[in-house]
């Protein structure tokens, strides 16, 4: 008999805020930890990318070179390179130490395509994919909004950058060669790509057309799961068996990767307009998601949520929309990046609530409450939102740590 594994450590949730980084980048569109969690990147709406040591709270370097706000960034496994994508339609590959742009890929400059692309497919406001009221808006948007690059990811060896754009394509860029055009364009999506994640041999994309697509390079298959509502974020579970998808119907869904079956549904937060991140923690015990009320919510993975009732202490939503989300890195922390709106929508909240669209967030020290339904963490104990310096977003990134 195989020996039973020692009992794993208890899963913990961040409860205490360790750091608050005043980024000074305008609205922070994304905050990302590096591979080992020792550094983090913040993407600002002031066209800069900043590298931080979140533990000490020191800014290490600022990367300038994007022509418009930076929407996403990722660090390579060896911390030598950074890739970022921005509203200037470009994907940039940075050298960490010199701060120079090594390559800039501009393939996403295309026009949005497809019938839903034309309409925008952003039945966001009306929630259930009702396009009626949205048509007008979207046409407008397609005229105004550049083909922003919403998300970028390195593959495991940092030889390929995979970027998803509002032009409804996912493009795989070769970092090794000087080829200006992508290795492959995944143009199956009918609308903007909001989220891209990679595993060793898979590309997972979430699109505003309400589908989660998984390209399996090993088997040569494309699996397309229909969720219905525009997807804001997708991620793999750590064991690679499940897929978590956050959509604009304020629901997180945990799907079986192989069959597409629904394993869990998590609700209680608010996500109707903005592109907010969702995560699974390191041990796959909890699901986290940012909410537009400025909180980060966590659910126990196994607890099939029944809505935000029960242990949901704080019901008073902050007046302003976007809170932002989180990811776990290592044993450490949830991170919060301020996030832009859903692709296709202007980054600025369309909602009137004068606040900032960007968010800040992040997390605190402490144990997870013993049990119960979805829990949420509020940034800065009160209203992370009201601290906003500029009207477009919260300039701060809050850094929470697990104890």
């Amino acid at each position, binding site marked *: 008999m195989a020996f039973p594994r020692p009992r794993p450590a208890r899963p913990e949730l961040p409860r205490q805020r360790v750091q608050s980084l005043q980024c000074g980048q305008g609205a922070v569109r994304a905050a990302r930890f590096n591979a080992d969690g020792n550094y983090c990147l913040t993407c600002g709406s002031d066209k800069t990318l900043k590298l931080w040591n979140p533990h000490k709270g020191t800014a290490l370097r600022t990367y300038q070179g994007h022509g418009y706000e930076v929407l996403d960034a990722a660090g390579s496994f060896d911390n030598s390179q950074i890739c970022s994508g921005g509203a200037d339609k470009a994907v940039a590959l940075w050298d960490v130490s010199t701060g120079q742009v090594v390559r800039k890929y501009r393939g996403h400059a295309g026009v949005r395509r497809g019938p839903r692309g034309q309409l925008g497919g952003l039945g966001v406001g009306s929630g259930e994919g009702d396009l009626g009221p949205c048509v007008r808006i979207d046409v407008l948007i397609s005229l105004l909004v550049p083909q922003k690059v919403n998300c970028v990811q390195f593959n495991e060896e940092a030889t390929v950058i995979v970027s998803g754009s509002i032009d409804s394509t996912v493009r795989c860029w070769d970092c090794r060669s000087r080829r200006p055009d992508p290795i492959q364009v995944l143009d199956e999506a009918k609308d903007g790509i909001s989220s891209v994640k990679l595993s060793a041999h898979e590309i997972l994309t979430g699109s505003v057309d309400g589908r989660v697509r998984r390209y399996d390079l090993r088997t040569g298959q494309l699996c*397309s799961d229909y969720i219905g509502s525009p997807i804001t974020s997708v991620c793999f579970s750590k064991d690679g068996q499940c897929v978590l998808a956050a959509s604009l119907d304020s629901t997180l869904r945990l799907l079986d990767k*192989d069959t597409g*079956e629904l394993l869990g549904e998590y609700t209680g937060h608010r996500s109707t307009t903005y592109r907010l991140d969702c995560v699974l923690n390191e*041990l796959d015990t909890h699901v986290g998601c940012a909410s537009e009320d400025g909180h980060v919510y966590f659910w126990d993975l196994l607890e099939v949520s029944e809505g935000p009732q029960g242990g949901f202490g704080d019901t008073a939503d902050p007046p302003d929309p976007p809170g932002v989300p989180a990811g776990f890195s290592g044993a450490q922390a949830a991170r919060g990046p301020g996030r832009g709106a859903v692709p296709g929508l202007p980054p600025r909240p369309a909602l009137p609530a004068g606040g900032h669209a960007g968010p800040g967030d992040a997390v605190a020290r402490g144990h997870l409450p*013993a049990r119960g339904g979805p829990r949420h963490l509020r940034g800065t104990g009160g209203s992370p939102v009201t601290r906003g310096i500029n009207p477009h977003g919260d300039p701060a990134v809050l850094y929470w740590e697990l104890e």
Partner: protein
Amino acid sequence: MAESSDSEEEDLVSYGSALQPLQEGERIKKPVPLQEQTVKDAKGRYQRFHGAFTGGFSAGYFNTVGTKEGWTPSAFVSSRQKRADRTVLGPEDFMDEEDLSEFGIAPKDITTTDDFASKAKDRIKEKARQIAGVVAPIPGTTAFDDLIGPSKITVGVELLRKMGWKEGQGIGPRVKRKPRRQKPDPTVKIYGCALPPGLSEGSEDEEDEYQPENVTFAPKDVMPVDLTPKENVHGLGYKGLDPSQALFGASGREHLNLFSGGSEETSNLLGDLRHSKGRKLGITGQAFGVGALEEEDDDIYATDTLSKYDTVLKDEEPGDGLYGWTAPKQYKSKNRSERDFKYIGKVLAGFSLASKPSAPVKIYPPPSLPRNYRPVHHFRPVLPAGNESCHLQKALEESAGKLQSDPAHHSRHALNAAQRREQLGETELKGPSPSVLEYLSEKDRERLKQVKEASEQQVKAKPVPQQSPSSRFQLASPEDAAHKWQTLLGGQLANAGSSDFKPFAKNPEKQKRYENFVKSLKQGEKGERLERFFDQNMSEWERGREQEEFFRAAMFYRSSNSTLSSRFTRAKYEDDVDKVEVPRDQENDIDDKETAVKMKMFGKLTRDNFEWHPDKLLCKRFNVRDPYPDSSVVGLPKVKRDKYSVFNFLTVPEPTTSVAQATNEKIQESNSLNKPKKSSRWDVSDKEKEKKDSISEFISLARSKADAQQQPPVPAKEECGTGTTETPPSVQVADEDKDQEEESKRPPMDLFKAIFVSSSDEKSSSSEEEESDEEQQPTTSERQSETTKLADVADSSSSNLQESVTATTDSGIPSLPTSKQELDAAEEFGPKLPPAFSPGTTWQQQTEVPAAFPGPSRKEKHRKIRERHKTKKERKRKKEKKKKHKKQKNKGKHKNKKSEKDSSSDTTDSSDSLSDMDTTGLSPKELLRRLKQLQY
């Protein structure tokens, strides 16, 4: 001694040339020491033989190049930014200029190559070779060399030879020798001294004697007179360095030599009058032009005789030698001379010269044109001969005023191009079929045919009324039909099959049949004989149809002029304007999916699987094997469809999709099979596995049995909430099993094995952790208790088995002894929480399955879907029930726990259990697994 030494000397073989015998009193020259033996170049520089090239070089720095330091490195230019101008140094860069001069090793001037060089240059070589041949150990070997060696004849010489030129002859038209004595004109002054009379006069006389008058000779080989105007400012006659000087001088000398030393005969043959004259009129010397430094000093005073010049304008005199005149020599008898000797070669044996010259070719002057002739051609419309509308043709001809009654004439002019071509035996023009029909659409063609046929029928109705009414088929019997059509076709048949009219070009076989058919039809064959041309495999009706088709085609055929057809060519590539590439697999209708999503029926209904081809480079970058190494497709495979096809607007899944899905399913299956392997943590050693194999087989066997037993489905399980608690699970299981079997085949045995094995591990690993809430899963524990015996080895069993066992042991008598610990352990995986729920769906018995499944099998998938219909309330109720039941069953064993549970409310149940689980700190995999199982 002396003799012997002499003889020895004779025997000695000596090499080299002997030294000149020393003269008396002369000092022996000291041999130049080796180091002083130097070679100097033209400029007096020492030549050193240390270079890489012949003769070496002397660059000033002896063994170096260019500088004292040696090679001068050119400035380094990085090729990164700018490619350096590549300076390739050739051998020329290291050579002295003398080497490049005319006589250097690599002359830069344009020189004649051997092919074009005259042989004169080779004379020295020739001589050397001759000498060598004589001197060589085997005399005459060089002669053999000549035999073997390629003859190097210059191109010009070769050409000349082919034109009849022979060595030594001059070039130009043959001339008749007109010996003309150039009597010194008394008015002309003669300079110089006269020739010796004996020499010149005698020769002249002799010449006159034998000279045949009718013989032509090759022109003399002389330098043509240079008639170029004088353009320079040199003195008259001065030529700077005349390259032809040598030749000129040589020829001059030859003349002299010949003249002086020639035998009688030669001088006879020479017949050169000019010498005598030249002698008399000779001007010696060249006025200008020989430099003091010229080597050919002797030429300075060379005499240039006037005899070399003609003093009178006249035909060129025949040559000076025997050359060019090979006719027999003794024709002093002048009787033959009247003959015009056009031919001067040797007459071949057996041939004689024609006594009469052949009649000259008569040349007829062109006919004088009539006065009213206008050199413009009017084209008449060309009408095919076999055309029915010969009346029209006639009319046309009449209108042209050229009506010809002569049938032969008529036929000659009435031939069309094709017929003429046939008569002339020319190959036919490569062109598409000339029929306009080809360019019509099928429908139009059909319509035309019908119209044509109708009119035809009307016209020919009378001749063809005798159709046999006894036809069994739609068409008259073939014979009748043939007859009918033959009459219909009439003369048109004549060229029906003859040309490139290919009405069935798209179907080569049919076309072939058609051609055979027409051919035989032309020969008047009928009936059955015609039949054989049709495909034997066709039914009679088809045959009849085809025959009619052929007839029609033959009738319809018009052999139009192929000139038109040759203007066009068939398209080589299909025009694909009306086709578009569309992805082969389309995502299915969204409506279905939306309803599925609303019902939370995720899975099959919401999933589309496509074959997707990653780029090869992408695979490489991801370190993944290319799944489709042979395909060049990237992305989703595309197919060409009509642009305006209905199918573009319908989302009809193509068969290929299903194939892809099938393969996909296969892959999934294999995935699910492999999955347990992935979670190696839970794997046990092979030994254990083997141990369990027999048991798992047994289990599956039992399971299948149970399936069979419970085949009758009891779908309406509404009463399960209130009714009996025991039966529902089994029934449902049966139900599910049935469904599953409908859906797909049962997974292979390996799957079960894999499941059991891994589940056992799971259990064993986590068994200690769970002690508290077994009561929440009464049924599970119950089942577990039944299977625990097996569980020792197999640890758990498939849900089906458990359920079936449960069903059999409903009476409450545990068939197997249970050990509490094992039971507890098993319970940990029991689903506490139902999965998604949606109100309003029918309640179905929740099947509680031990949480031992490493991954979802297909069966489980199915179950999952079903279970989404549960409502929360019902679930709770169910739980309670189960609990009760379990309590009853395991009262004794679990008393303490039961009491605990009792105190807890139903509502907190789930959270409690959750928290319990939370605190257990399970591994993520396990958690996920459990999560999946929650839904079963």
